[in-house]
């Protein structure tokens, strides 16, 4: 294929496994997009090898994010590359962008990529995605999942100052299910520094935001804000899962009752929040309250 001179192609032809290295690569993509002289940018998946499902929401959000950079972003794929078609089908990306003719039947239960534009859409979105969750949910467990996912969306909608909050969810090959919420908004470090009227590092800012009692919305309203994260931690720890947060050049992984915050070599646009839990349908999730 001949690319026009005003096109820039970004190749996604390496593996994007779960972890800080892949998030750095994704951050690099945003940097390339932002600084590209070309107005047309192509995210090229024709040589796709592997992308962890937790990153589907970021990849699929890129055509929308082009507006922020005054760029037109398109995703290119090869229908003969089975792996890429399976990835794009399983995460609902083909369907979302009306590429149904390339769809393959899903190989697993998953939550199609989509987005919400405000708090009013959270409830109905959660109802739909819980119907698609791969593990059978008792009414009590469904209520807990609903409540916890509500906190995730509410945080993103409230803090991002972004017009869209993207999401998707699907299983990986490790017997777990990854649910991701991504926004291309202001990012946690900037939000925190604006609130504190300071210039603390991104990792310090992320650490501040994760602490109980801290919220950039405190003192803007007459009641204390936060803290949905501690509830999510309880649920994830009870079910041997983990939480990954990346915002600007700060990264945090929460697993096994520990938090690890590190710097990213590159700055990711917005905030990536992904929760991974078990996907073995023969078992049920443990309620956070059952641990006590």
């Amino acid at each position: 294929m001949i690319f026009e001179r005003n096109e820039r192609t970004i190749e996604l032809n390496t593996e994007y496994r779960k972890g800080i290295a892949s998030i750095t690569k994704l951050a690099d993509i945003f940097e390339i997009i932002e600084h590209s002289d070309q107005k047309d940018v192509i995210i090229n998946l024709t040589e796709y090898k592997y992308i962890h499902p937790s990153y589907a929401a970021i990849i699929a959000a890129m055509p929308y994010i082009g507006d922020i950079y005054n760029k037109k972003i398109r995703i290119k794929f090869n229908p003969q590359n089975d792996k890429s078609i399976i990835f794009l089908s399983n995460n609902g990306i083909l369907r979302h962008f009306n590429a149904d003719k390339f769809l393959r039947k899903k190989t697993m239960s998953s939550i199609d990529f989509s987005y919400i534009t405000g708090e009013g859409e959270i409830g109905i979105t959660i109802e739909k995605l819980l119907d698609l969750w791969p593990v059978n949910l008792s009414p009590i467990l469904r209520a807990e999942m609903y409540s916890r996912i509500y906190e995730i969306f509410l945080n993103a909608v409230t803090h991002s100052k972004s017009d869209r909050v993207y999401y998707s969810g699907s299983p990986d090959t490790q017997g777990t299910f990854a649910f991701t919420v991504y926004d291309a908004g202001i990012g946690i470090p900037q939000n925190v520094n604006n609130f504190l009227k300071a210039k603390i590092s991104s990792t310090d800012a992320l650490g501040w935001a994760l602490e109980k009692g801290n919220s950039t919305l405190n003192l803007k309203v007459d009641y204390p804000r936060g803290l949905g994260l501690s509830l999510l931690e309880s649920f994830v720890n009870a079910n041997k899962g983990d939480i990954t947060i990346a915002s600007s050049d700060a990264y945090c992984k929460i697993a096994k009752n520990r938090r690890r915050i590190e710097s990213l070599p590159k700055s990711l646009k917005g905030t990536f929040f992904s929760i991974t839990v078990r996907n073995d349908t023969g078992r049920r999730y443990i309620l956070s309250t059952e641990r006590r």
Partner: protein
Amino acid sequence: MTIIIKDFTTTALSEEAGYKLREKINEILSTGRNDIIELDFEGISLFSTAFFNASVGYFVLQMGPEKCKRLFKLINISDLGQDTYNHSLENAEIVFSRNFSIDSMGLVTKRNIEEA
């Protein structure tokens, strides 16, 4: 005095529902009565910290956590709801302990009025 939550909301999720609960509590407090206020969550299965922050959390900042713990009694609440409430209360206690003063609240209220 008992406030039946399902009388004005089907879930304890949103900030908006939290404001409604706050209003109900204020109506009781404005009568000058010092009785325990029961919050009856019969029929409520979904909870978020946003709801409790906007309702009980507000009173924690106004009166202090100890007074609130004596004032409010939650009944017919699921483990999920109690867990969520506990997290919200703990968060509110931390904010209160950081000298969130009446003056600060006054400034917030004044700013809100000016911006309205």
